[in-house]
């Protein structure tokens, strides 16, 4: 409402008056002086005495004459100008510039009301309330309706008949001067509604925590107690000093006693730790251990999966690198050498390591550890053997079986499924045990009775076949490496040689991948013999070339005639098993411990040397130099190397019990086997997004040679054309090509001139889409 009371009179005006007081004082005397002169009739009055405040300034005439101009404006000089308010919108304090300059000096509310103002209208309400329903019965509703109508703006005017009546009523009220009783009511139509929300019921909850454990202690502190305590302490210390002085001579005895006394305690403690024997807990512990390892070696695991040496993509670099990944060691075998490595043919992450010693004077117990790439800290399975392990191999069809040859000539078969620490088979001295170290074991196909069998070779000159029957290990001597079997030797030395030499020491052998009975044997004196299981009296062929003992012979898994040999005479030689002379010789500058063909390419092989280097050759790239020559360990001899059959992972073992896993860079795992002319053909690199000269996406070895000549490849092949019209072809064998062939199709714009009839353009539908009906809906229903 308009008539708002302001009960608080702002104090500022008085202040303002006070500041102006000098002015008024100055002007007033002038009036006073002029007053008596002009009026004259006031003489009888007592003369006015000017009262001055005690501290008033006395000013000279000149100063009094000085004029001060003041400008009056509507602004309130005392209104604060620096008010800052907190703005919740911007969450900062902001100065509010607009101040209220209105000062109300005087205000008075009257009780009269103008006739024509709106304030008159509520009057009838009060009269109605008093009880005059007959006169203004409709009056209260009508103005309300009118105001409503005005607000609504519909344009329907209020009824003329009733409006005057309402006004008339108001007139009457004002004229009669009747005071409206009670306060003025709100003229607007309003309604009050109240509701109460449900109050959340209160609930009390409490709990008592267990108080911390307490104990009562009582004692008395006094001087003699303290003194006694110190004295006792002193005496004890003196005693300790004396004992120490006595100790050195009695030291050894004490230690012995200690050793005796601690041993049983240790045993007890050991038997207490039975938790790891609990099979369920053991499983959980294994998982936890693997997880912990995975966390620790997360980067290595990432590299294992995703690392690709980007340098291999650059330019014409043919060489590659090896990225060392996990290092597998076991505390107990730190003093031992890695004498054999074998990947499990079924699980790509599992491999077995044999520990022993090649040093004649440092023989001891041996050990077999099966590691998984998922846990580099501790082997999954651990067997200890009575003599150093010299060789081992997983059975290709029964991946839980490991054949093991020991330094003392024993051959063992372990089954890692069985949770026992002892071998399931063991050769006994009664039944054909070798008398010298067993240098290699190799599983063969199960025989006609489906009994697994394996071959072993030992420096006692025997090649023996072992057959695993249900109960025992049967042996058959397949071959005895006699010198006179060699046709050359026999002719050279004549019949005496038979008496002169005993048996040649076999060091290694490998079976031909295609022709089963054929195998080659490497011997201690450097000769390699081709033999057959069928003829045990004669070598089929002898290969001469190595000057020192042959450590490894390996048949190529793609080309059945070709094998490699590694020897202590620093060389690796490549042979054709029909040709007594080596095809190629690679001098590696140090004793070659082991050589292995890559499982993915017929031209790639790796060799490890005694000076700690790993050599990887790709004969397709370079026939003379390795594509990778990398020192892997310092001050250690590398003894063995093994390719993972599934992943591009290489395993090398050294003579300090370490096994290092390494990832082959892309250049080292090119799949070879195609004709030379296709070397020129560029391929599309998914990494660089460009065409590249070297090949990675080659047809698999089965298809390769047949299809390459025709040039017609299956429908899924993709051909990319570079600017110089060179072609890159994706065959179905490459997963990337398959993906591109399935998902990415672009056939160009279709040209169908004249094939479609000419029709008049129809006007389509228009309007606003409101929903789905018609054809689509029907379709959906039928479907």
């Amino acid at each position, binding site marked *: 409402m308009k008539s708002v009371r302001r009960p608080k009179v702002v104090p500022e005006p008085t202040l303002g008056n006070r500041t102006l007081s000098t002015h008024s004082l100055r002007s007033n005397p002038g009036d006073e002086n002029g007053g008596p002169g002009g009026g004259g009739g006031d003489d009888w009055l007592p003369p006015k005495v000017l009262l001055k405040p005690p501290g008033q300034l006395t000013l000279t005439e000149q100063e009094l004459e000085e004029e001060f101009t003041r400008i009056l404006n509507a602004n309130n000089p005392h209104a604060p100008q620096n008010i800052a308010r907190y703005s919740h919108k911007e969450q900062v304090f902001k100065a509010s510039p607009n101040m209220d300059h209105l000062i109300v000096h005087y205000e008075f509310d009257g009780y009269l009301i103008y006739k024509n103002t709106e304030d008159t209208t509520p009057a009838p309400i009060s009269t109605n309330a008093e009880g005059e329903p007959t006169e203004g019965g409709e009056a209260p509703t009508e103005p309300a309706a009118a105001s409503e109508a005005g607000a609504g703006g519909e344009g329907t005017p209020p009824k003329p008949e009733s409006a005057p009546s309402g006004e008339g009523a108001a007139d009457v009220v004002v004229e009669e001067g009747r005071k409206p009783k009670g306060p003025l009511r709100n003229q607007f139509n309003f309604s009050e509604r109240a509701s109460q929300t449900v109050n959340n019921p209160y609930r009390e909850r409490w709990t008592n925590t267990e108080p911390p*454990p*307490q104990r*009562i*202690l009582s*004692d*008395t502190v006094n*001087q003699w107690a*303290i003194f006694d*305590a*110190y004295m006792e302490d002193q005496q004890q210390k003196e005693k300790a000093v004396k004992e120490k002085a006595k100790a050195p001579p009695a030291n050894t005895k004490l230690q012995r006693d200690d050793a005796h006394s601690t041993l049983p305690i240790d045993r007890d403690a050991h038997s207490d730790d039975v938790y790891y024997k609990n099979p369920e807990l053991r499983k959980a512990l294994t998982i936890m251990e693997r997880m912990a390892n995975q966390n620790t070696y997360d980067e290595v695991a990432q590299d294992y999966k995703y690392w690709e040496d980007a340098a291999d993509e650059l330019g014409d670099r043919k060489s590659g690198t090896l990225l060392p990944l996990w290092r597998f060691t076991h505390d107990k075998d730190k003093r031992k050498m890695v004498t054999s490595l074998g990947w499990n043919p079924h699980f790509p992450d599992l491999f077995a390591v044999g520990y022993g010693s090649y040093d004649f004077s440092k023989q001891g117990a041996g050990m077999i550890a099966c590691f998984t790439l998922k846990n580099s800290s501790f082997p999954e399975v651990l067997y200890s053997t009575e003599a150093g392990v010299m060789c081992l191999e997983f059975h290709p069809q029964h991946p839980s079986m490991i054949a093991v040859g020991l330094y003392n000539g024993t051959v063992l078969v372990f089954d890692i499924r069985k949770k026992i620490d002892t071998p399931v088979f063991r050769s006994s001295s009664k039944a054909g045990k070798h008398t010298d170290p067993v240098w290699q074991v190799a599983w063969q196909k199960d025989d006609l009775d489906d009994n697994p069998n394996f071959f072993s070779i030992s420096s006692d000159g025997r090649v023996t076949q072992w057959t695993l029957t249900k109960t025992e290990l049967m042996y058959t001597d397949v071959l005895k490496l006699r010198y006179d079997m060699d046709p050359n030797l026999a002719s050279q030395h004549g019949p005496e040689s038979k008496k002169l030499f005993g048996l040649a020491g076999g060091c290694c052998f490998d079976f031909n991948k295609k022709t089963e009975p054929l195998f080659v044997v490497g011997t201690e004196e450097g000769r390699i013999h081709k033999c057959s299981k069928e003829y045990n009296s004669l070598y089929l062929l002898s290969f001469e070339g190595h000057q020192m003992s042959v450590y490894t012979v390996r048949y190529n898994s793609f080309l059945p005639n070709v094998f490699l040999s590694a020897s202590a005479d620093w060389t690796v030689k490549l042979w054709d098993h029909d040709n007594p002379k080596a095809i190629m010789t690679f001098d590696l500058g140090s004793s070659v411990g082991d050589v292995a063909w890559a499982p993915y390419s017929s031209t790639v092989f790796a060799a490890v040397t005694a000076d700690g280097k790993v050599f990887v050759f790709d004969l397709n790239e370079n026939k003379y130099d390795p594509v990778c020559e990398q020192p892997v360990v310092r001050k250690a001899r590398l003894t063995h190397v093994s390719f993972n059959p599934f992943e591009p992972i290489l395993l090398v073992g050294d003579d300090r019990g370490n096994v290092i896993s390494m990832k082959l860079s892309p250049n080292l795992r090119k799949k070879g086997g195609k004709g030379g002319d296709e070397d020129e053909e560029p391929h599309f690199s998914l990494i660089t997004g460009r065409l590249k000269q070297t090949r990675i996406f080659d047809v698999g070895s089965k298809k390769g040679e047949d299809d390459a000549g025709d040039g017609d490849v299956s429908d899924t092949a993709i051909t990319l054309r570079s600017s110089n019209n060179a072609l890159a072809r994706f065959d179905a064998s490459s997963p990337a090509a398959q993906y591109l062939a399935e998902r990415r199709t672009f056939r160009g714009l279709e040209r169908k001139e004249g094939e479609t009839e000419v029709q008049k353009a129809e006007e389509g539908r228009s309007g606003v889409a409101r929903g789905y009906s018609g054809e689509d809906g029907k379709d959906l229903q039928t479907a």
Partner: protein
Amino acid sequence: MADLGSTANLADKGAAAAPAQGGGGGGDKAEEKTRNFNYPLVKICDMMEELRAEAVDMVVTAVEKHPGNYEAAAKTIKELMDKRCGSSWHAIVGEGYGFEITHELRNLLYMYFGGNLGILVWKQS
């Protein structure tokens, strides 16, 4: 529970009484030895090893900081321990007093220091 204030007072009185006793009754040997008794001797302690070492250090510093003023020393110890490991620690420093306290386990240190002081520090809320 022993009251901190009262025991401190007791300790003060004891301190006043002690020199007279020592001067009168102690033999020469004993005096020599008491000179060597200037190290903390832990009598009873069930704290963790780390806390124990720290608490003994605190006691030693506090007592050496306020020579003769056991009340101040006790106050310092209490404040240090409160700061170190939570509230409601109590400390008694004195030459002669008897006590029977209830303490929380693993929060008690009862030691002698300087050949004539018994110091009791414990926690109980």
